[in-house]
C-alpha cells in the first residue's frame, strides 16, 4: 500500500465508534435513509450524486452527515449523473471508498460511465432506487431502469425490505472490493424508498472489522505514473516495458470471469455477515416453501416480500406453491437456480420490467437457465406494476391459482406460453 493510502486508512472510520444520529440498535427509517446509513457505516470517503426522485433523500441524508461533520468524507456536488459517476470513477481510482445513488433517467444518463466504472474494475457502490423509465414521464416504481443496465458489467443486487438495504450496502463494499467490480444496490422506489420500517442499525465497530480497508488494484503513485485505460487494441501486444499485455478481449474475459466468480463470493460474504450480525440475506436468492412445491413464483425486490403472503394464501387453498426471491440478478445464479427449480412443474415469473418485443428479463433468464440443465418446466411470464401500477396480493394469487388449474387441465395455449401475461392492465 502506498504512503498516501496508509494515511487515509488511519484517518478514516473514527466516526464509527460513536455515531450521533443513528447509534447501533433499532431505528424506524425509510429505505433511502437505510441506504445512507449503510454508506455512512461503510466509511465512504467520497460521495458524488445528483438528486433525482425518488433517490434524492439518500443524497440529502449523506450531505447532512458530511456537512454536520459526522462523516469525514468529501461531498462533490455535480451538474449531472454522468458527472456523478465520473467523479466516483476518479475518486475510486485514487483509492477512496465511494458511494453514489441514482435511478431511472439518471441511471440511463450515466450509462456510458457505468461501462467505464466496470471496465476499470472499480469497487463503486451505487444505490439504484428503481423507477419507471420515461417516456411517458413517471416518477413511480418499476424495475425497468436497472434491468436496462443489465449488461453494463455491474453486480446487481435486489433488496426486499429496508433492513436488506442497509445490510446489502455494507455487504456490497466487501463484495466489490474483493472482486474489483462495481455493485448496484437496487430497491423499489416509494415502496421501500419512502416507506418507514423498523431496522436494526449494526455496530459501526463491527462493520469496520467486517470491511477491511480498500486497496486499489492499481495504486496511484506520483513517482511512477501510469496511463489507465489507454487505447487497447484487439490483440495482445508488448508494452513499452517489453511485457506482453492483454488485448481488449482478454480484459473483457477477465471482467466476465470475475463477475462469474462473484457468485461464490456473494454467498460466502453473506454467510460471514450472518456470523457477525446475525442476519442472512439469502446469498444469491432465497426460497420460501419451495421444498414440496410444484408451482414456483419467481420475482425480485419488494414484490417478493409481498409474494410470501400470496404463497400463504394459496397454501390454504391446497395449491402446492413456493417462492424464489432473486437477490443477485447479475451475476445470474443459473446453475443454482436450475437445481432449486428441479422437478417444478409450473414456474411463474413476475417482472416489473419488460424486454420490449419479447418477455420479462427475469423470465428470459429463468428459461435459459432451465434449458442448460435440460429441465422442461412450463414457464409463464407475468408483467406487473409498470409505472407504479399497484400490485395486490389477491391479484397475484388469483392468477397463480387460475394458471395452475389451466396447467392441470392442459389448457395452457400458445398465447399464454409464448406471450407475456399483463396483470391488472386495463387496456
Amino acid at each position, binding site marked *: 500500500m502506498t504512503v498516501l493510502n496508509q494515511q487515509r486508512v488511519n484517518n478514516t472510520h473514527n466516526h464509527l465508534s460513536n455515531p450521533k444520529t443513528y447509534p447501533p440498535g433499532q431505528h424506524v427509517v425509510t429505505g433511502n435513509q437505510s441506504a445512507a446509513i449503510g454508506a455512512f457505516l461503510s466509511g465512504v470517503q467520497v460521495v458524488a450524486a445528483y438528486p433525482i426522485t425518488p433517490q434524492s433523500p439518500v443524497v440529502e441524508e449523506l450531505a447532512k452527515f458530511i456537512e454536520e461533520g459526522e462523516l469525514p468524507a468529501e461531498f462533490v456536488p455535480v451538474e449531472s449523473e454522468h458527472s456523478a459517476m465520473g467523479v466516483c470513477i476518479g475518486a475510486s481510482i485514487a483509492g477512496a471508498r465511494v458511494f453514489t445513488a441514482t435511478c431511472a433517467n439518471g441511471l440511463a444518463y450515466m450509462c456510458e460511465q457505468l461501462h467505464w466504472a466496470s*471496465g*476499470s*474494475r472499480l469497487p463503486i457502490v451505487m444505490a439504484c432506487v428503481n423507477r419507471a423509465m420515461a417516456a411517458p414521464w413517471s416518477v413511480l416504481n418499476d424495475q425497468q431502469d436497472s434491468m436496462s443496465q443489465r449488461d453494463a458489467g455491474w453486480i446487481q443486487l435486489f433488496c426486499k425490505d429496508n433492513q436488506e438495504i442497509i445490510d446489502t450496502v455494507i455487504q456490497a463494499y466487501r463484495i466489490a472490493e474483493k472482486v*474489483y467490480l462495481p455493485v448496484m444496490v437496487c430497491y423499489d422506489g416509494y415502496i421501500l424508498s419512502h416507506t418507514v420500517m423498523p431496522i436494526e442499525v449494526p455496530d459501526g465497530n463491527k462493520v469496520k472489522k467486517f470491511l477491511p480497508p480498500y486497496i486499489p*488494484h*492499481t495504486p496511484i503513485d506520483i513517482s*511512477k*505514473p*501510469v*496511463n*489507465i*485505460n*489507454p*487505447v*487497447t*487494441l484487439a490483440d*495482445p*501486444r*508488448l*508494452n*513499452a*516495458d517489453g*511485457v*506482453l*499485455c*492483454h*488485448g*481488449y478481449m*482478454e*480484459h473483457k474475459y*477477465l471482467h466476465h470471469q*470475475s463477475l462469474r466468480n462473484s457468485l461464490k463470493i456473494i454467498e460466502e460474504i453473506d454467510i460471514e455477515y450472518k456470523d457477525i450480525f446475525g442476519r442472512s440475506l439469502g446469498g444469491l436468492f432465497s426460497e420460501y416453501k419451495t421444498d414440496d412445491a410444484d408451482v414456483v413464483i419467481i420475482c425480485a425486490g419488494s414484490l417478493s416480500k409481498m409474494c410470501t403472503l400470496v404463497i400463504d394464501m394459496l397454501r390454504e387453498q391446497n395449491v402446492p406453491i413456493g417462492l424464489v426471491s432473486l437477490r443477485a440478478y447479475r451475476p445470474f445464479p443459473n446453475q443454482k437456480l436450475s437445481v432449486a427449480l428441479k422437478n417444478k412443474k409450473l414456474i411463474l415469473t413476475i417482472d416489473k420490467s419488460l424486454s420490449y418485443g419479447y418477455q420479462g428479463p427475469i423470465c428470459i433468464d429463468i428459461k435459459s437457465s432451465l434449458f442448460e440443465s435440460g429441465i422442461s418446466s412450463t414457464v409463464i411470464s407475468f408483467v406487473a406494476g409498470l409505472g407504479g401500477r399497484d400490485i395486490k396480493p389477491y391479484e397475484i394469487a388469483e392468477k397463480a391459482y387460475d394458471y395452475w388449474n389451466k396447467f392441470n387441465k392442459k389448457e395452457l395455449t400458445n398465447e399464454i406460453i409464448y406471450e407475456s401475461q399483463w396483470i391488472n392492465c386495463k387496456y
Partner: protein
Amino acid sequence: MNTRDCGHIISASSPAKGEAGKTGEWRTQRPVLNEAKCLAVRANKDICFQCWAFCPEGAIERKPGGPIDLTYCKGCGICAQICPADAIQMESEYDSPESTKSE
C-alpha cells in the same frame, strides 16, 4: 501467445515512447525537419521544443533538432502544425526514397 503473466486486471501502461505499440506502421506521411528554420538549432539552445511538447507519441527527443523516431511517429502532423518557425514539413510516405511502403 499468453498474456496471463502481465499482472494487470485493467488496461494500463507506463507513459513512454511506444506505449501504444509500433505506431510508425500507421504512417502515410512523415515529418521532415528543416534545420535552417528550427529555432532551437539556429540558436543552439534548449528553447522552443513545441514539437516535443505536443507530440502525442513522445517520438521527438528534447534537444535542438532532436531526431524524430520514425518507429513510433504515426505521421499525425501535429508537430508540423504547432512549429512556430514552420520548420517541419509533412511529406508523403510513398514518395520518400527511404520509405519501405508501396502503394
